[in-house]
């Protein structure tokens, strides 16, 4: 069941009145729920990565992400970014949504983090650009671009795993890869409880809005949001206790045995071989200085 707030709005541009903090919070919560639901829909599409065994996919994509942290040349990192876009397209993920998400989640953060490194204060060198007292050096710029490219490539690969794998399959893959049962169970419960709490918070905001005759002052809204945050924190503790009771009631004694038996197909091995070859080529080219 998709909450009302989670429906994707039509794209018709229209002027909107400025929204209260409470309303923006409710909208953000709705968007968070919607994103999980959209992710489930993307993971169910018949794309390239969706067809790969979750364990093989996890290993290969994590392999790419780790490789991105080892290569030094911007060209190699750029090639990896292009690879994420190709894989996204082959997996029926909208490249626009993909780029937007990667940039919003990691790209902007990386830019903010890397920007100081481009200046002469942090990285002395040949001046490439001077803006008043600020001098950007070409050496610093190269370092900053490399850092940003590395983060974007890593985030892109991470996002590909998350978007093209059902959450349940991802947890199964972690179980099959000998991740401790308790860790997997905690991840599973965390997701369920976060979804449950998100719905609670969304309903609280809507209930308040339905009884409000005015938008209230910013101070009132902040106070209300803060108070509700405390309420949700308290509720989450109680929920955690209840979940634990529910586990005990069904015999939980500390272990989470599973019946998961994943099977690989020839295409999984073909995919893994291709990924290994690609990683090897990237590392060799980077090492030999063929790429800069």
């Amino acid at each position: 069941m998709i909450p009302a707030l989670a429906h994707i709005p039509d794209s018709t541009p229209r002027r909107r009145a400025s929204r209260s903090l409470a309303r923006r919070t409710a909208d953000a919560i709705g968007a968070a729920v919607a994103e999980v639901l959209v992710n489930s829909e993307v993971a169910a599409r018949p794309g390239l990565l969706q067809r790969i065994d979750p364990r093989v996919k996890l290993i290969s994509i994590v392999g790419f992400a780790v490789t991105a942290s080892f290569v030094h040349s911007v060209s190699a990192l750029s090639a990896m970014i292009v690879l994420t876009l190709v894989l996204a397209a082959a997996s029926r993920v909208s490249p626009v949504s993909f780029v937007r998400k990667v940039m919003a989640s990691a790209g902007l953060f990386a830019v903010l983090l890397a920007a100081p490194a481009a200046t002469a204060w942090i990285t002395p060198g040949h001046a490439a650009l001077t803006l008043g007292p600020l001098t950007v050096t070409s050496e610093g710029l190269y370092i900053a671009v490399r850092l940003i490219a590395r983060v974007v490539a890593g985030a892109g690969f991470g996002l590909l795993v998350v978007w093209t794998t059902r959450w349940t399959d991802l947890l199964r893959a972690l179980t099959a890869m000998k991740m401790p049962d308790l860790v997997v169970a905690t991840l599973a419960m965390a997701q369920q409880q976060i979804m449950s709490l998100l719905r609670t918070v969304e309903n609280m905001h809507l209930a308040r809005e339905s009884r409000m005759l005015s938008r209230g002052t910013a101070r009132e809204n902040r106070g209300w949001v803060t108070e509700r945050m405390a309420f949700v924190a308290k509720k989450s503790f109680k929920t955690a206790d209840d979940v634990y009771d529910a586990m005990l009631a069904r015999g939980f004694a500390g272990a989470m045995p599973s019946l998961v038996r994943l099977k690989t197909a020839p295409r999984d091995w073909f995919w893994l071989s291709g990924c290994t070859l690609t990683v090897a080529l990237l590392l060799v080219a980077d090492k030999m200085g063929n790429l800069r």
Partner: protein
Amino acid sequence: MTDTGTPAATPPATTALAYELAGVAHVYPGGGTALEGIDLAIAPGEHVAIVGANGSGKSTLLKLLDGLVFPDRGTVASFGRELTEDALEEPSFRREFRGRVGFVFQDADVQLFCTTVFDELAFGPLQLGLDADRVRARVDEIAAALRIDKLLDRAPWGLSGGEKKRVAIASVLTMHPDVLLLDEPTNALDPRSQVWLVELLADMKGAGATVVVATHDLSIVEDFADRVVALSEEHRVAADGTVQEVLDDRDLLLAVNLIHEHAHRHGSLRHEHVHGHSTGHDHGHA
């Protein structure tokens, strides 16, 4: 219900009561009485409705019966063995007791903590140590019986309220319990799901299971219960008798806040009568 695996628990001794509570009192961790002076005996195979207003202690009583909380005074025994924290620390008794008693929580969201419905149904049998084939057989059997077999691959959080309740009940039934405890099972259920639930409880009676349901929904009580225990707002047993004895006692139901005085007009005629949350009433006029 077909048993496709080794029973999780040894069969209960025929002479032992399913539950025997003597002078039980329980206080909430933050203070405040939850239950006071509860004496109660439940025989194997009985279907008991625990009724009472919100806050009367029904949920706490069920948690006591499931060994999730323990009395501050008095004793709770199940099938001849006292339920204490120490007793439930013993792996053999814990396994036996958890396999024998199933608890369906009021809020299905807290009960559904696995990644898929299949895992949810398999959780209990796996904890009981059943082998993979038996676990799968039980999951298939219960999923088919509760008509949730098409949901097995779904994540529980994405289900509707009625589906969640079915899965929560199924997750307990896969353990083949002798005793089923249900806390406000009709909460948030649509009418069709409520009918389904009442039919399921009737089936449980046919299977010889002991069923204890905490509810303030009087409409379902006479459909499944042999006996009704009413808790007062003072957290004590106010009445313990047959369904007719308790539900026909208007003064009692008014006293425990399960029905209330109600007055309204039909044109120029004003009249008063008692009114329950779900019990029908006859106005005696057109």
